[in-house]
């Protein structure tokens, strides 16, 4: 009995820290959770320019999923997402590994690779809009060098346009990924490399089987950064193609914005953003369960 009453109530453990975090907890609850709940709730109404509480059931969702533009957006997000994830990782890691081999002028290269990240997506989009324009950009240059039949026109081809956007996104983003990976590589103990060399393990095997598994925390951070960038991609598309040709490069975030503000149809925009939230939840929840659930048991 006595020993139990002496044990402090877990609620009051680290009381100072808990009081200090109250403002942030409130912000999170009211702004993030509250705002999200409000959005989801109003996605079941027929709100136009101003939110109004007139319940219409699943009408907005039915309209959403029968709109070709939305379906194209989702498809694009999947293509762009999968490729962007893979290529960011591969290119970022390869660049980092090369810089990590103690090459000359490492600082210069690092700066060059990281520079595009200093540009906003709007600027990146405009630069690549011109570079990929058939009449002014790469195609024009190659043709003027004498290869008359050369064709490289992704932005005006419905099938290829999403890859044109991918190129610009990778150009802009891989520098950051490289830096994250490089920081991870630098934190690997020199002794591990020495030990691997003594054991006669080839360099590529050392990377693949020793270094990469050790970089797991860095990879998780990188994954979160890339994934969030994928879901919210908007400005790049607006600057580079405006969603065109036709709807070929539309993305969900653009659909949400266009219907909320240009179409003055909040209900439709809310329904679309709720679907975006749902897709994030579907990805995040199992991952968080695996990641944190296991740590809890450990």
């Amino acid at each position, binding site marked *: 009995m006595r020993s139990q009453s002496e044990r402090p109530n877990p609620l009051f453990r680290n009381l100072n820290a808990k009081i200090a975090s109250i403002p942030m907890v409130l912000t999170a609850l009211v702004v993030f959770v509250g705002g999200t709940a409000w959005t989801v709730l109003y996605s079941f109404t027929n709100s*136009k*320019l*101003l939110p109004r509480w007139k319940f219409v059931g699943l009408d907005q969702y039915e309209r959403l999923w029968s*709109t*070709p*533009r939305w379906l194209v957006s989702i498809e694009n997000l999947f293509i762009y997402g999968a490729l962007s994830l893979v290529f960011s990782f591969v290119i970022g890691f390869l660049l980092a590994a090369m810089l990590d081999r103690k090459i000359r002028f490492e600082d210069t290269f690092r700066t060059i690779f990281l520079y595009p990240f200093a540009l906003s997506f709007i600027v990146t989009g405009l630069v690549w*809009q011109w570079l990929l*324009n*058939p*009449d002014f950009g790469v195609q024009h240059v190659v043709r003027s060098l004498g290869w008359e039949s050369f064709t490289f*026109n992704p932005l*005006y081809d*419905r099938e290829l346009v999403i890859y044109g956007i991918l190129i610009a996104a990778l150009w802009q983003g891989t520098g950051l990924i490289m830096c994250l990976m490089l920081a991870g590589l630098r934190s690997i103990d020199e002794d591990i490399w020495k030990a691997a060399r003594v054991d006669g393990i080839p360099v590529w095997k050392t990377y693949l089987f020793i270094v990469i598994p050790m970089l797991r925390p860095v990879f998780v951070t990188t994954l979160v950064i890339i994934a969030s960038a994928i879901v919210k991609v908007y400005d790049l598309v607006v600057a580079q*193609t*405006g*969603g*065109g*040709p*036709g*709807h*070929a490069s539309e993305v969900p975030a653009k659909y949400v914005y*266009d*219907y909320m*503000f*240009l*179409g*003055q*149809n909040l209900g*439709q925009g809310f329904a679309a953003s709720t679907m975006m939230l749902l897709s994030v939840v579907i990805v995040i929840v199992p991952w968080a369960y695996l990641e944190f659930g296991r740590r809890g048991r450990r």
Partner: protein
Amino acid sequence: MRYRSVTAMLAASAAALAFAGSAGATDLEVTHWWTSGGEAAAVAELAKAFDATGNHWVDGAIAGSGDTARPIMVSRITGGDPMGATQFNHGRQAEELVEAGLMRNLDAVAAKENWKGVINPPSLLEGCMLDGHVYCVPVNIHAWQWLWLSNKAFADAGVKVPTNWNEFVAAAPALEKAGITPLALGKQGWQEGGLFNNLLLAIGGKDLYLKVYQDKDAEAAGGAEMAKVFKAADDARKMAKNSNVQDWNQATNLVITGKAGGQSMGDWAQGEFQVAGQVAGKDYSCLVGLGMPNATITTGGDSFYFPKLADEAKSKAQEELASVMLSPKTQVAFNLKKGSMPVRGDVDLTTANDCMKKGLEVLKAGNVIKSTDELISPDTNTQFNDLMAEFFAKQDMSVEDAQKRFADIIGSAD
């Protein structure tokens, strides 16, 4: 006519003087999205006229376009930080703000200055009214229904400059053979939608246009008459196949340089020809209503709305601004710079160029019709533009499919 305009001018200046005497200097912020060279010069005329009443115009230009600016304006008004006055296009963009009671009515000024009598066409004032109250001041008329043609392109192709849409379509193969893109078209939904509506009005006629957009008659939208319009849109799609540009002014530039035969775009495109130093009739030709018989123009354009303010002095200044914007002197000065047409029929525009005069004649004859901005909601308009963007980009999308989806949109329109 002459006498009337003089009296109107006198009345307006007398009113302006009376106001100037009574009010002190009040700052009034006016938001708008007129930021290009010609537009900024035009807006400066409004500011000058307002400052002359003893008040002070605080310029709240929002760069980008209407699409960028409108959400900012709306959120300022709904968020409780209203400006003194704000631009919107004629029509339904501010409808809900008015319904929510966020805009003040201008009945007193309108009655005093007889807006009902002077604003021409009357549909403009109707567009400003809700339940019999006036909520906005129309300041200009921009018509969409123009076909701009490059005389050089047709000379290069060895065909004569067309005088209507059908001749233009017939001349397309010759243009293509000469390596010229027949139709310049920026690959954005609103431009493609605009072109389509121009075809609808020119080929389908006024009645069909109203049946579709005013009565929202899905049967007419899916009918045989409408099929002709879609056929024409299909021609346009083929003619614009090689037009690899996005912005409307880039497309206009193709026409100016003779790389494209023509472009169907509103009268704001004329500013580009003027800046490039081209002369109407010599370097370029303009066909109102695409040159088809019974040319009709839509009376889109810009209006100013006045949010409700608590400040007495500012409310007073709002009325003065409304009055100044409609005064004949300001109307002439503003619209000549803007390249648009005045909203009152009793002002004299002898300095307007040939193309603008053609437009004014149509306006004077009363061949006007409400623009789609006034007839359908922004939501429907966005859906329609989406469909057009898809139709013009997918060469393999069949005309029947497109028409069926168009009829669906019209059927569920509001």
